[in-house]
């Protein structure tokens, strides 16, 4: 991996690119601080704007934004009792009590150190696993890619929040949307309604921006809620930041456990960051000799939550970039960025674009360190961003979203697609239908179809090729398990619960 690393260092170290990383960090911090925004919306907004950039620079920038949002969310969690992102939710349990006790500086220092070091550990683990991943990837041919795409769809659809059946329907709809336009294999026009615009199909970026950025902003406008639960115009960070940083070293074994937990959870497709910080927090509480201290302003709670939260991104990149299955919603959005820049996500990405992998990991590492330094210095000022009313924020974001979508293809009809998906995204959010499987369907649909048809051609028209080797069978079993287990579980539990009573 020496050459890709050299390439990555060379790219990130260039003054202009380093400036972009800093800009990405600042933007990520801002987006992370504002509840309702976060990594998904930030990436959805920025992906169209990176279209004109070199792919390596674009991914470097996006990784920096992702790193920034993680810590941004912890600032408001600690200072305002409102997590900027869902992945910082567990930080509130001890972070806010610490702030109320006048120890906000200590909480922020602990959060900053745990975040940066957690990200570093996550990346180190991922780098160590790359040789193993490369061995696995060598066994992947078209039949395995087909099963992998199916597994990715089913696991995401059944694991994400919300109704399981709705998740599966969302994935299916995403696939159907992906089949609009000329079939690339047969040339058959599908669902074009004789509209020239639809000959190229439904484009991914307008749909993505509509589903996430527009849908989310509409949702916030609809709820009309205050940004911070505890508004306090005098956000006093206070001193104690160094004490917080040193606390991470003092509780190093707790930090290591939490970061490793976050990394492993990040690697599991679909589980995502929300799970990581809760699991790490509760494991820290349970394993402590004085669990009753947790929830009263114990710095260990902040360390556990933040270490796992930032480590999960490193772990999440392994299935996302190595297999094309996103570890979380923001990873699903990031997959779309690959397609925008003409790079096919999936098993071959590690083989053919190791330089991209290296740039992303290095950018994530640099951005997490920068985020902690900048975030710690500007925490008080950043928290004041939450004083901006949603009534101002949402229109600005919506306008920027429409402008951004137009800049990708200079096609006015893209805006109508964005609008349609935005309205649908709001409806989906309201009824508990996750939007992440739909994005995955849009991304993986064409991949699955091409892999299937290629396999069919290779085998001379027979289907035995899909069951011919162990990897295919393993992926098939995993797909079936991910599909039926969540549906069977409540039925089984209801049955046995009825028998017992």
């Amino acid at each position, binding site marked *: 991996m020496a050459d890709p690393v050299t390439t990555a260092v060379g790219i990130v170290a260039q003054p202009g690119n380093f400036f972009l990383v800093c800009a990405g960090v600042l933007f990520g911090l801002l987006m992370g601080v504002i509840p309702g925004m976060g990594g998904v919306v930030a990436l959805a907004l920025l992906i169209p704007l990176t279209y004109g950039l070199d792919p390596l620079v674009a991914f470097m920038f996006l990784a920096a934004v992702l790193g920034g949002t993680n810590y941004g969310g912890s600032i408001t969690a600690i200072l305002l009792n409102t997590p900027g992102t869902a992945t910082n939710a567990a930080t509130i349990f001890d972070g806010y009590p610490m702030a109320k006790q006048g120890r906000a500086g200590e909480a922020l220092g602990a959060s900053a150190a745990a975040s940066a070091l957690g990200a570093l550990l996550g990346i180190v683990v991922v780098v160590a696993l790359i040789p193993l991943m490369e061995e696995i990837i060598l066994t992947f041919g078209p039949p395995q890619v087909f099963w992998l795409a199916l597994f990715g769809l089913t696991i995401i659809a059944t694991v994400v929040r919300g109704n399981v059946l709705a998740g599966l*329907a969302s994935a299916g*709809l995403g696939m159907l949307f992906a089949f609009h336009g000329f079939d690339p294999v047969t040339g058959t026009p599908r669902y074009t309604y004789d509209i020239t615009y639809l000959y190229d199909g439904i484009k991914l970026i307008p749909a993505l921006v509509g589903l996430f950025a527009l849908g989310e902003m509409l949702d916030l*406008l609809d709820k009309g809620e205050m940004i911070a639960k505890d508004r306090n115009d005098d956000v006093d960070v206070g001193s104690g930041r160094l004490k917080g940083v040193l606390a991470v070293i003092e509780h190093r074994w707790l930090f290591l456990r939490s970061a490793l937990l976050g990394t492993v959870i990040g690697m599991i497709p679909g589980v995502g960051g929300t799970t990581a910080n809760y699991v790490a927090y509760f494991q820290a509480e349970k394993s402590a000799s004085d669990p009753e201290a947790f929830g009263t302003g114990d710095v260990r709670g902040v360390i556990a939550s933040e270490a796992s939260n930032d480590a999960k991104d490193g772990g999440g990149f392994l299935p996302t970039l190595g297999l094309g299955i996103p570890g979380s919603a923001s990873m699903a959005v990031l997959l779309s960025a690959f397609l925008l820049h003409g790079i096919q996500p999936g098993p071959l990405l590690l083989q053919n674009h190791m330089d991209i992998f290296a740039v992303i990991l290095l950018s994530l590492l640099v951005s997490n360190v920068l985020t902690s330094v900048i975030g710690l210095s500007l925490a008080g000022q950043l928290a004041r961003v939450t004083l901006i009313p949603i009534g101002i924020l949402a229109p600005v974001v919506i*306008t920027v979203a*429409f402008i951004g979508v137009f800049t990708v293809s200079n096609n006015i009809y893209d805006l109508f697609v964005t609008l349609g998906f935005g309205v649908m995204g709001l409806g989906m959010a309201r*009824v508990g239908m996750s939007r992440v499987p739909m994005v995955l369907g849009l991304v993986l649909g064409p991949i*699955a179809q091409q892999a299937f048809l290629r396999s069919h051609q290779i085998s001379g028209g027979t289907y035995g090729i899909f069951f011919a080797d162990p990897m295919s069978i393993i992926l098939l079993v995993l797909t079936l398990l991910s599909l039926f287990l969540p549906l069977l579980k409540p039925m089984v539990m209801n049955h046995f619960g009825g028998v017992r009573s």
Partner: protein
Amino acid sequence: MNTRIISSPDRLAVGLYGLLLVYTLNLIVQTLDFSDPRARLFPLLFGVPTALILGLLTVRGLMPTKFDRVLPTRSVEEESETAGGELGWLTVVIFASFPFVAYLFGFLITVPIYTFALTSRACDDVRTGIAVAVVVTVGWWVVFVELLNVIFYEGILL
């Protein structure tokens, strides 16, 4: 068929699932007309199960008590998170107008007017709307038109 009185969130769910079901069935019907069987394969492979699931969700929305014991349902937390109601019809119309106004009049007219209208409506304050519109328009012009040299659509009427 016994149906209970459907509360607002369930009405929305039934409406959304029903609409998506109709769209999916429409796609399936179109798929049957494709001449090449390879072009039909995947849409049918995913379209039919999707339609079945959407049908099930629609029926569940209409008769929730029959299905809640055996099908995964939303948690109480998710129910409260989906509460809303602040969005008026005028706000929705303004929100949806961007593509149409841009198509007719171009971005130079649309960006300031849209931002002003939506912000004024959302904040219920005209002066805030004007201020935000000015900032956004200037920012758009400087970043996208001057720095990035993006050529924006000029509208069919202008």
